[in-house]
């Protein structure tokens, strides 16, 4: 009996030890091949402008992983100019890097250049804004989902019994920007699904300028003093919506919904009541997903354009009740 136990124990110990040894060998092998596959490679990052919370956060993630794994990420900042971006992309194609990470300013701007890059054998990951031309991967926010979530919340609130009216105002950025269009179609679909009892009394563009958003909202509030909700398309601009509602003393009545990448400035606005609901497409999560894709693209020996992967990051909702110190993040400007 004793011997049997001892035997069993020894056997178990041996098998565990053996397993550990085998695993160590195995993980070393995969780690080595992983590191050697990515080391010394070159990634070119062409965002829209190195000033937004999203772009800076993605960059911080990209650079950190690059430093850890020994590849390089070169940043080409077009500073909001699609032409400058197209030039940067053309130049990047000539330089033949291993991978290009690209944020499209709209669906058209880089469509042809992406085709050209794929033909030249360069893989492209598109960030947060899809182009008409699909490339190896897309990672970013689900714009339609953002609009849909906002629509659902607004429909629920403004068709409820206590609502001041069924009137809703929308403040877009630039009406032709696809981000706006996708959000609006999701928003309209959600209103439609909720029974169509909600009336959009105003749909104005503020051109991403909070002062304009404030002026528009205060005009709309004058015209519709029983307004139930305002939906804004981008947090940086929507600060003006919150300000106009607050100034009119209608913060209780008017439900303000905004969305963004989750910089601390927006959670501060949820805390002070400027935003009643903030839909966050968490830039940290996008950064993590981006890094996973970058690592796998650099390892994979597949031809550029042979496969098209899409990943939409999850959206989640921040309200005064669900707000925690971890809901948002502070962008490290030094990175």
């Amino acid at each position, binding site marked *: 009996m004793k011997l049997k136990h001892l035997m069993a124990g020894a056997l178990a110990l041996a098998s565990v030890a053996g397993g550990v040894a085998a695993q160590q060998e195995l993980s070393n092998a995969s780690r080595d091949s992983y590191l050697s596959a990515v080391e010394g490679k070159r990634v070119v990052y062409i965002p829209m402008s190195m000033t937004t*919370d999203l772009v800076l956060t993605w960059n911080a993630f990209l650079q950190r992983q690059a430093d850890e794994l020994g590849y390089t990420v070169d940043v080409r900042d077009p500073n909001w100019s699609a032409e400058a971006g197209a030039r940067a992309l053309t130049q990047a194609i000539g330089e033949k890097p291993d991978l290009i990470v690209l944020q499209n300013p709209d669906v058209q701007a880089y469509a042809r250049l992406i085709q050209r890059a794929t033909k030249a054998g360069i893989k492209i990951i598109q960030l947060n804004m899809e182009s008409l031309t699909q490339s190896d991967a897309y990672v970013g926010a689900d714009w339609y989902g953002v609009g849909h979530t906002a629509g659902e919340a607004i429909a629920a609130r403004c068709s409820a019994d206590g609502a001041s009216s069924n009137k809703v105002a929308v403040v877009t950025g630039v009406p032709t920007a696809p981000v706006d269009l996708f959000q609006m179609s999701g928003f309209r679909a959600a209103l439609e699904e909720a029974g169509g009892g909600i009336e959009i009394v105003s749909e*104005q563009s503020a051109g991403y*300028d909070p002062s304009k958003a404030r*002026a528009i909202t205060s005009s709309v509030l004058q015209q519709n003093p029983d307004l139930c909700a305002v939906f804004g398309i981008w947090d940086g601009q929507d600060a003006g919506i*919150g300000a106009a509602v607050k100034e009119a003393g209608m913060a209780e009545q008017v439900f303000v919904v905004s969305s963004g990448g989750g910089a601390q*400035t927006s959670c501060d606005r949820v805390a002070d009541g400027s935003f009643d609901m903030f839909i966050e497409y968490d830039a940290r999560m996008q950064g993590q997903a981006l890094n996973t894709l970058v690592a796998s693209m650099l390892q994979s020996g597949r031809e550029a354009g042979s496969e098209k992967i899409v990943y939409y990051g999850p959206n989640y909702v921040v309200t005064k009740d669900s707000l925690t110190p971890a809901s948002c993040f502070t962008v490290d400007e030094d990175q």
Partner: protein
Amino acid sequence: MSVQAGEQARGSQRKGVSLRFSQEGIVFLLTMLMFVGFSILLPNFLTSGNVIALMRSVSVLGMLALGMSLVVIGRGVDLTMVSTLVVGVVWAVKMANDGMPFGQALFYGGLLVAGFGMVVGLIVAFAEIPPIFTTLAMAPVIFGIGNPFLFKQDTHNAPQGVTWLNELGFGASFGIPNTILVFAAVALVMHLILRYTRFGRSIYAMGDNPAAARLSGLPVRPITVAQYMMTALVAYLVGIVILGSNSGINSRLAYTTLVYDVLLVVVLGGIGLSGGRGGVRNVIVGTLFVGTLLSGMTILNLSLTAQNFIKSLVMLLALIADTVANPRDEQTSQQGDI
């Protein structure tokens, strides 16, 4: 000045006196017409709330236009205003959020902004590069000094717990929003400077005929530098108002066409781009016109493209009217003038 030019000047002076035929008068009449039209067509347009909201919304534009008019009257133009405003205020806010007392941060921001104005003024006055080219080139330079060297992110919230800033943006005195009162105060100060100080009169003299102003012994170059510094400081003040109004500021403002809206107000009001004419009253008329137009178009729920089209069309008409009312003075105009 030749006899012909003298007659022309007297002619336009006569036009200025009789309100009906000046551009200012026409715009004022149009504003009234539009106002009455909107009041009849749009049920809630003519409420005290809407009129106050309308005035409040355009005060920022109006204040910027007051600053701009100071250089335009002196036959200049300043396209750096919005960049200057953004860089100065965002830097001050960033320093305050990093722990500096807000007052101190604002003081440093003000110094920086005055410095920008001085550099622009020095280039215009001493290098004698036409102001439109100088400021067109300097706007991105100024913004480039701000981003990336002074700040990197675009959205900046106002520092917490600054009561007066909150009052400036949201408070009201005697039922009138404080922003409108600040606009009125800036207008009054500007009016007093332009009408009753030697500095103000010199600006008119320079705008009318720079060569004659210099020959008669006016310190044309120092005045030019002072003009651009004042304009920069007005822009900075407007930036602080914007900061208070939105409890924050976004550096993307520098990429908007705001500065052209400001020019629209100045030109519409009847301050000729050829310099030497107009005053604070013109700016107020121009501001009222643009305010009424914007408010009406928002209430009518016109699309952005339609609004831009109407605005551009109005701008074009104003420029044509300006050319007819204030023809270029062949005696004093030079290459590069606008």
